[in-house]
């Protein structure tokens, strides 16, 4: 596109606003190249006075700067606009959210003369993108109070927030809402629903949605396969994987992640390797980190730690926490300190800041009684200033999300909660359960 533009210039054809919009959004979509080209284009439009007068060009510019990470410049452009319409506002809010500037985004949102569905959605979507799911849902509620009707995009966004929080109650409500609005057959919404239900562990509901769908896209299949796999329904997941192909759909990398997860869940080593092989050889999909993760998990689970180690050492990308975690956890169960140490040495080169690996390794030391080693790991963590991530658990009761950390006493029913736990521990003791007092709880999840 850029070279075409140059040609246009050479041919002295005056570019009009459509040209610019196309070009600028082109830059926005490829930030790395757009970074250099964008400002040039901006300068050119400025000359023509398009940037402040033409709304669409202005919006495109704001979008471009925001996507390139220059949110301050985006704001400048925005402020200079002579006229603003909802699109420019929304673009600016999106720009702020994209760059993590929540306060600015919210302020701007409050300043807005009219807030449409899109503005709300942009804001909620921004929160979801940043992993602030509770906030997203809070804004969704505000949206409802303001009587704005959520559209399908909002619904998809909210469902993804619910999926992450495990807010089954709210999600069910959204599902009902979608049905009421006649969005029963909307494929995107159905796909989100499948994903949402399976991420809440309500696999039965996910299955129902899937069965009732009139048309299914690749995403629908991937969602159901992944859902079945992560919930431990291995056979069914693999059946769906085959069925999908029989219906003429070509599996993509996500489908294979699903199938591999299914295998790793029940320890089907040979099958897993077979799928991995087919993926590369037949479907020409180059494996991504998730796929390697599954293979490592498979081997670790089957007790073939050396094999897992060699996969980690030979994979073409840096192993992430998940991949390493699988193997380390297996080392712990097997008490293989030597391998764990080797693995850690390998990892420290790659990423010295990952906390969970230190925790795991020190747990391994503790498990085999090497207290010195355990302490050393903790010291190293301290010295490097690595803090372990605090663990928390949440549960949804009647559409409220309740979150707890270990030893939490801030809940207003904490007295009842603790007496219930004590009662449980009595009964557990009767069942022969003795709490495993291990190093883990000092260092571990909590």
């Amino acid at each position: 596109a850029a070279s075409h533009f140059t040609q246009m210039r050479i041919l002295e054809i005056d570019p009009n606003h459509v040209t610019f919009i196309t070009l600028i959004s082109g830059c926005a979509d490829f930030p790395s190249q757009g970074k250099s080209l964008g400002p040039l284009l901006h300068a050119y439009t400025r000359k023509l006075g398009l940037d402040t007068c033409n709304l669409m060009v202005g919006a495109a510019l704001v979008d471009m700067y925001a996507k390139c990470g220059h949110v301050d410049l985006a704001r400048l452009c925005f402020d200079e606009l002579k006229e603003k319409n909802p699109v420019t506002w929304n673009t600016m809010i999106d720009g702020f959210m994209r760059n993590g500037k929540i306060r600015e985004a919210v302020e701007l949102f409050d300043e807005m003369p009219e807030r449409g569905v899109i503005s709300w959605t942009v804001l909620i979507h921004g929160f979801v993108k940043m992993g602030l799911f509770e906030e997203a849902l809070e804004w969704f509620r505000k949206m409802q109070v303001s009587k704005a009707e959520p559209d399908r995009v909002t619904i998809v966004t909210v469902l993804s927030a619910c999926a992450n929080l495990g807010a089954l109650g709210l999600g069910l409500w959204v599902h009902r809402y979608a049905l009421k609005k006649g969005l029963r057959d909307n494929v995107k919404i159905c796909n989100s629903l499948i994903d949402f239900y399976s991420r809440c562990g309500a696999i039965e509901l996910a299955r129902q949605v899937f069965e009732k769908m009139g048309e299914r896209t690749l995403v629908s299949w991937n969602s159901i396969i992944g859902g079945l796999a992560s919930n431990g329904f291995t056979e069914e997941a693999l059946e769906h994987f085959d069925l999908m192909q029989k219906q003429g759909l070509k599996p993509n990398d996500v489908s294979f992640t699903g199938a591999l997860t299914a295998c790793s869940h029940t320890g089907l080593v040979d099958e897993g390797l077979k799928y991995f092989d087919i993926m590369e050889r037949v479907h020409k999909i180059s494996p991504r980190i998730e796929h390697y993760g599954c293979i490592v998990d498979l081997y670790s689970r089957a007790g073939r730690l050396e094999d897992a180690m060699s996969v980690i050492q030979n994979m073409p990308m840096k192993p992430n926490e998940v991949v390493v975690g699988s193997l380390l956890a297996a080392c712990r169960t097997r008490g293989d300190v030597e391998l764990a140490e080797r693995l850690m040495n390998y990892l420290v080169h790659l990423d010295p800041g990952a906390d969970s690996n230190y925790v795991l390794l020190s747990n391994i030391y503790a498990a085999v009684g090497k207290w010195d080693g355990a302490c050393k790991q903790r010291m190293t963590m301290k010295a490097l200033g690595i803090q372990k991530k605090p663990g928390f658990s949440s549960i949804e009761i009647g559409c409220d999300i309740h979150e707890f950390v270990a030893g939490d006493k801030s809940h207003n029913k904490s007295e009842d909660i603790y007496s219930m736990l004590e009662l449980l521990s009595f009964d557990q003791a009767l069942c022969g359960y003795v709490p495993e007092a291990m190093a883990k709880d000092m260092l571990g999840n909590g």
Partner: protein
Amino acid sequence: PAPATAPPPSVNDLERLCQEGKVKQAIELMDNGVKASANCFHSLFEMCSKHEDAKKVHDYFLQSTFRGDVKLNNKVIKMYGKCGSMADARRVFDHMPDRNMDSWHLMINECANNDLGDEGLELFEQIKKLGLEPTGETFQAVLSACASAESVEEGFLYFEEMSREFGISPTLDHYLGIIDVLGKSAYLNEAVEYIEKLPFEPTVEIWEALRRYARSHGDIDLEDHSEELIVSFDSSKAAANKIPTPPPKKYNLISMLEGKNRVTEFRNPTLYKDDEKLKELREMKTGGYVPDTRYVLHDIDQEAKEQALLYHSERLAIAYGLISTPARMPLRIIKNLRVCGDCHNAIKIMSKIVGRELIVRDNKRFHHFKDGKCSCGDYW
């Protein structure tokens, strides 16, 4: 908001709302300055069942011209009693300019309804001290107070006092009152005995009361017995699709005579190969649950560690889930890190104890805990 052209709401609107039983809207109208009539208060006092509403209506009543009306004040006592706020009822009662016998009765009855039988009985002592003349109705209230306080002796004492001191001959309601006293105090056998000794043929109401208490206390034989008698009064009262009572199986000396209970001889501890017990024995030998002491950190005292384990966040979330939902409902927990091994073990056992499916999503996978097992097959 109502359109500007509509006339301002009047007392008629309020009365209509009261008749329709719309408490909320009625209170709203009063908030907007509509003055209620005596009729309105009358029906509002009847209808209020929430303390919040009761308080509001009472406030408006105190501002009204009817605030001295005894009948309405009595209604207020009843209303507060119904809302479970005896402190408020008591305040109204204490500040009433002139009480009648009804006020006393209501007060005692409401005390009884709110598990404050003792307070009710104190009120009755006051009645006597003030020299008021108790009636049959008074004693009915007193007996229900006795029932509420589960004080059997006093119940009988007051029953006697009624005819001896005040010359009131007991009616069916008083006898029923005594049965209430016995029934609520869990004196079922005594209640049966009392009924049999009644100076008149027990009526169907009496058997119905007995059946009610038999049900509450879970004595199905007594329940069946009274039911049989009720049906003999009125065959239409036979329950159409009653489940037949299972025959009792008392291996004891009353139903069965000595030495006949030798089944155990024939069922002696010979082990069968499919015996659960045998299986358990085998499993214990081959890697059942053996507490792993290897993990005990020597520099931390045991108790603190166990505490820390016990109060891991997922367990707190589960405990909260338990106390907030009905039995056997599955719980879904989301955890941001991996579930620790000990919690995994503990939750497995928990799922069996509490009889629920516990679904835990950690950052790695789903764990569907059910009946002491986990879908992840102990790999996590």
